[in-house]
């Protein structure tokens, strides 16, 4: 086994870890935007959830109760978004931005009020977190089965339950969106709300349902950050992941499976960026990890501009639905 191969495997492994919150958020974005509601507040909801998950898990000792509380708070943030944009027809971008900034402030203020640690939560003990699950026989396989054994141990095994939940959420999103009545209506409401309305279904209700699901998924992303991969909340710990997820969602053309791959690609870029700093590569020269980090954004801009194939966002996105009377 060459060192390069092993490094590559580790990069793939950390790709999964990095991509997990992106996947949750991208799926959240798909639900919201497919229903016609722009959601740039993925970031803020995730941040709030991360804080609440850590705080409650610390207080109760149970990561599950923490997760439940986090999801609840994330849903509340969604409902505020809905109150502003669906009921009061406010600007969806402004509302999302408000939630993001609000989250940045609130998490720290409440954090300090509760724990007096400069906005962090205390480090969570192992028992209050979602821990890695070593799959059975990992070590045995690694020793006895060439290549696949290593892959099994390094890549497949050793992830916490939320990593798997993220992957599964893609399948569930796909199923709901394309295989259920609810999904059919959800897709319709983001494309042509008049069609839904004339079929006698409430546009408002559909959109609220969609953003509540988005709230749940963002909540899970936050839970993952502070109580699974991390051991507590740190100020601004989402660090723009919500926006990368937004980019991945667009890159995946608002479709769950392509969005999953976009998340993995973006996650991989980040994982690689962490490893290649200063590494010389033949012909290309020194790779700058700093620029590599910007690649997801750049790719998204290029894609949106229609330079590599076209993307069509849901047609009714961003427009409040006004019944013509």
């Amino acid at each position, binding site marked *: 086994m060459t060192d390069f191969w092993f490094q590559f495997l580790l990069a793939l492994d950390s790709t999964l870890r990095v991509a997990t919150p992106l996947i949750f958020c991208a799926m959240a974005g798909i639900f919201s935007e497919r229903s016609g509601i722009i959601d*740039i507040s993925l970031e803020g909801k995730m941040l709030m959830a991360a804080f609440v998950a850590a705080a409650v898990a610390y207080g109760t000792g149970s990561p599950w109760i923490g997760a439940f509380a986090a999801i609840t708070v994330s849903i509340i943030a969604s409902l505020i978004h809905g*109150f502003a944009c669906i009921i009061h027809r406010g*600007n969806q971008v402004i509302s999302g*931005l*408000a939630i993001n900034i609000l989250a940045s402030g609130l998490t720290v203020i409440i954090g300090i009020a509760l724990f*007096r640690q400069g906005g962090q939560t205390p480090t969570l003990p192992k028992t209050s977190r979602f821990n890695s699950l070593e799959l059975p026989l990992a070590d045995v396989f690694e020793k006895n089965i060439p290549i696949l054994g290593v892959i099994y141990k390094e890549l497949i095994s050793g992830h916490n339950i939320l990593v798997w939940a993220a992957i599964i959420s893609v399948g569930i999103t796909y199923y709901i969106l394309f295989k259920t009545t609810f999904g059919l209506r959800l897709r319709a409401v983001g494309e042509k709300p008049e069609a839904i309305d004339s079929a006698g279904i409430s546009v408002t209700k559909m959109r609220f349902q969609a953003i509540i699901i988005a709230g749940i998924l963002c909540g899970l992303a936050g839970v993952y950050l502070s109580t699974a991969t991390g051991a507590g909340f740190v100020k601004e710990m989402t660090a723009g992941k919500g926006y990368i997820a937004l980019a991945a969602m667009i890159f995946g053309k608002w479709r769950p499976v392509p969005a999953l791959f976009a998340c993995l690609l973006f996650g991989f870029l980040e994982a690689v960026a962490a490893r290649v700093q200063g590494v010389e590569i033949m012909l290309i020269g020194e790779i700058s990890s700093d620029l590599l980090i910007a690649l997801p954004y750049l790719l998204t*801009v290029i894609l*949106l501009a229609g330079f590599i194939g076209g993307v069509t966002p849901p047609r009714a996105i961003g427009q409040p639905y006004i019944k013509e009377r």
Partner: protein
Amino acid sequence: MQASRLPRYVDIVLIPILNLLTALFVAGIIIAIIGENPFTALSVMLKGAFVYKGGLGYTLFYTTNFIFTGLAVAVAFHAMLFNIGGEGQAAMGGLGIGLVALSLGGLLPILVVIFLAVLGSALFGAIWGIIPGYLQAKRGSHIVITTIMFNFIASAIMVWLLAGMLMAPNQMSPETVSFSDGVMLWQMHEIFNKMGFDIGRSPLNLSFVIALICCLFVWLLIWRTRLGYRIRATGFSLKASTYAGYRPEIIIIVTMAISGGLAGMMAVNEILGVQHRVILNFTSGYGFTGIAVALMGRNHPVGIIFASLLFGALFQGGAELDFEFQTITRDMVLMIQGLIILFSGALAYMFNPVLEKLFLRDDHLIGPKND
């Protein structure tokens, strides 16, 4: 920006104040919940912002930043463009100043370098606005998404340059060497000192005056020039703009250039006024605050000056919170900012139905909208 049937003073004075008060009310509740007295917090902030020596200087220093970024957002809003790329444009503006100051400093007379540096900030900011503008106008990319992406790209470029080829030698932090002597904007407290006043030390510098000039410029541009007229016509009605022959695509690109330029000039205050070298993350979210400022200031320079002052006071007063309280810090300001964006932006019309009932009870002042 729907047409309102309310009297003008309700629209431009009462509603913004009502929205602001709602935001502050909610903030007060949150402060009370975490066990502090909101009124004490308020008085600490006010003292810090206006009363303590130099406090006002700091307040006006922050105000300067917000005027630039607020104007940037407002100009774009007039063309119905939502420029949330102020952060990135300001960062690039800093780069523009750095490149001019570092390459020409010492070669040309100081005043010329300063002038070119200011120009450089506007130019680099403008470029960072033009590209999303072009992509919106000609390729149909949503400007909100593109400007978000451009914030991150700008940030990556800055890290790359400041930790790379522009990084000062023998230095551990990602920043350039200091500009050559004198390449900086004069400090206000020094100017006042020479005139015999002691206003206390603060980073307030000549940029504040430039910012006020920009306010005048934006006011002239939007309400007194032919271009401004076309920008507003395009923003209000694409069809009317096309009918009049204004070519909306061109208007969009030009507007984004001006908007980006103004955001870029925020760097004049931070870089040329205070740091005298390019540092990382000097934008500190001021670009986003500009959105709150523009929303509160109703996209009018006068409103923006007041809103900037409010946020300047919040930022400076917020810093004071750090000293006085154990539990509330300047992050409180972020929260208030979020609430203000929520209530004066997304929920701006929440009170309209109530107000319409109040003010239009006998509705004969204003004629029917249409036949």
